[in-house]
């Protein structure tokens, strides 16, 4: 299918209050035509409110939602031409699979023969060919999910919205569906907005991720950028594992932690307080005699726990200053790390090129 049906979504200063609480606080978001954008945030962050506003199910207090050039914020849901998949799938139990998928086509007055062909085509896309006559109660969880998806795109909407569609599936099926959804998205080329609270799911599937917290966008970027260059403490903490170390700026303007000099200058001189975000898998256990030189920032401490987890293992290292670092390493090759034992003194290093420095924000 070609991409001409996809539409960009432009959201401007969208605000929604429940009583005194902001569910959405002047949100601005540009969703590109045909992209897979994930709204990621903890529960109550406003991600679902934003999705429902795009679908037209809740009225924002103010703001604008444009599909392409058309202002949609006042348009009722049934005139928005938006496909939607709910967490509960919300399949119609009084209709067969084919009737469910054909429902939007029937509403659009499509002739029966054409409708049949389109339904079969959609079921084919989600790998459910030939199951049209089944009742909803005869389907497994994964199959229901696929029917809900087919029903949402069968009428070729310009925008597809999904509200945690995989959360009811077990882990294995969920991971399989993530890949499949991504595949279907590429095939359809439709602008897709996806809501989840599962960061791994967001990292796996998205072209871009919009991290949302307290009704505000914390960061909008590609999965790599969100992971490697978190814009603030919230994103650094919410995405991936991390340890955050509060740095101090010495008289020479250097950022230090204990005895270690982390950076010779702050990335942005206008901000005074900085934190170092450490991803456990970026830490290297250094040989005792290794001269780390300028390549690494070095932390020394004592191993308090060493935990084997199968494909990876991790160790907790208590630093002299009192903070605890998590060091994660693969178990594929017997590495220096796998020899760690509790009680052992150790030095760990972080490659200077990989440093993630973010402005401290005591408000978070």
């Amino acid at each position, binding site marked *: 299918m070609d991409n001409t049906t996809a539409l960009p979504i432009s959201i401007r200063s969208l605000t929604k209050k429940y009583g005194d609480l902001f569910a959405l606080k002047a949100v601005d978001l540009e969703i590109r035509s045909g992209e897979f954008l994930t709204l990621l945030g903890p529960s109550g962050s406003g991600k679902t409110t934003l999705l429902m506003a795009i679908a037209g199910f809740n*009225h*924002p*207090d*103010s*703001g604008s939602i444009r599909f392409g050039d058309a*202002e949609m*914020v*006042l348009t009722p849901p049934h005139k928005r031409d938006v496909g939607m998949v709910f967490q509960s799938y919300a399949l119609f139990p009084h209709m067969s699979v084919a009737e469910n998928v054909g429902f939007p086509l029937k509403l659009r007055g499509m002739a029966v023969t054409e409708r049949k062909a389109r339904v079969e085509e959609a079921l084919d896309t989600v790998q459910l060919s030939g199951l049209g006559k089944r009742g909803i109660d005869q389907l497994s969880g994964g199959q229901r999910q696929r029917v809900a998806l087919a029903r949402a795109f069968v009428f070729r909407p310009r925008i597809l919205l999904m509200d945690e569609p995989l959360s009811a599936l077990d882990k294995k099926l969920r991971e399989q569906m993530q890949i499949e959804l991504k595949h279907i998205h590429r095939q359809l080329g439709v602008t897709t907005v996806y809501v989840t609270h599962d960061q791994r799911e967001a990292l796996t599937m998205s072209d871009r991720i919009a991290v949302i917290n307290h009704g505000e966008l914390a960061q909008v970027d590609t999965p790599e950028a969100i992971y490697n260059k978190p814009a603030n403490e919230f994103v650094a903490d919410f995405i991936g594992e991390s340890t955050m170390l509060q740095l101090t700026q010495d008289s020479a303007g250097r950022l230090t932690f204990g005895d270690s000099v982390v950076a010779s200058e702050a990335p942005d001189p206008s901000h005074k307080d900085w934190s170092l975000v450490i991803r456990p898998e970026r830490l290297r256990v250094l040989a005792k005699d290794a001269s780390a030189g300028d390549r690494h920032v070095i932390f020394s401490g004592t191993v308090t726990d060493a935990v084997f987890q199968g494909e990876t293992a991790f160790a907790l290292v208590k630093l002299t200053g009192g903070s605890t670092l998590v060091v994660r390493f693969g178990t594929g090759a017997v590495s220096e790390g796998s020899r760690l034992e509790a009680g052992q003194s150790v030095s760990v290093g972080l490659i200077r090129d990989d440093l993630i420095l973010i402005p401290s924000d005591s408000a978070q």
Partner: protein
Amino acid sequence: MTQTASTTGQAQALNEVALAGQERREQWTLLGLSTPAILVIAIVVLVPVGWLFYLSFVGSDGEFSLEHYKKMIEYKSYARVFMTTFQVSLLTTLICILLGYPLAYFLAHLPGRWTGLFMLAVLLPFWTSLLVRTYAWLVLLQRKGLLNDLAMQIGLWDSPIKLVHNMTGTLIGMAHIMLPFLVLPLYGAMKKIEPDMMHAASNLGASPIRSFWNVYFPLSVSGLVAGALIVFVLCLGFYVTPAVLGGGRVVMVATQITAILEYRFDWGAASALGVVLLIATIGVLYLAGRFFKFDSALFGKG
């Protein structure tokens, strides 16, 4: 005005007015769907009851007066009516609790396939006209009725006993009509008690009787109170059964109200009595509501 300007930095936030208008329109359309029902209930219940409330404060001279309420305090006959009403309601409720609790317990512990069948024993009377059931009791309890025949045959008593047109008959009939109102909410509450609770109790060494009183009964109390309350409140205003089975000897508030209208056509007095009945009903519900939380809706007829 100034507040809007300062918070948003412009006179009006984007689409604010249009969105608010749409929200309002949708809300009103939805609430509008309930207007026909509101109208009917206003015409049949709210306005007329309000009217009676007004009438109860109009004296025989057409001026505002408390005479109808004063009479209720001064006249002994009124006190007797209130006493009878309270007595009948309380006794009926007690009988219903005594009979209803074991029955609900039995029903709640039936295997699933039997529940439907035995539930019919409760639902069928519930769905049958109370006039028919009152009539049946009238026949059963009369001097030459089935009950007297049976009792004399097995030697319980020698000569026919007067079982109807008195308090006994009224209570029997009332209890029969009210029992389903107690059993249904109680059954609902008992069904919600997790069997695991009882297993846990017995695992912890409680004897069946102890685990019943310490675990099961407290958990079923909300359903019991809800049911008892419905019964009590319905009894307060009951008319048909006492009128027929009481045979004029059991005068409750509802009976008195009709009598006042029938013989004296005194709207003020009848209204005042009705207002007192309403206030008592609401008072009981309010008091109970303060002490217990109910999730079951009230079912009522009679």
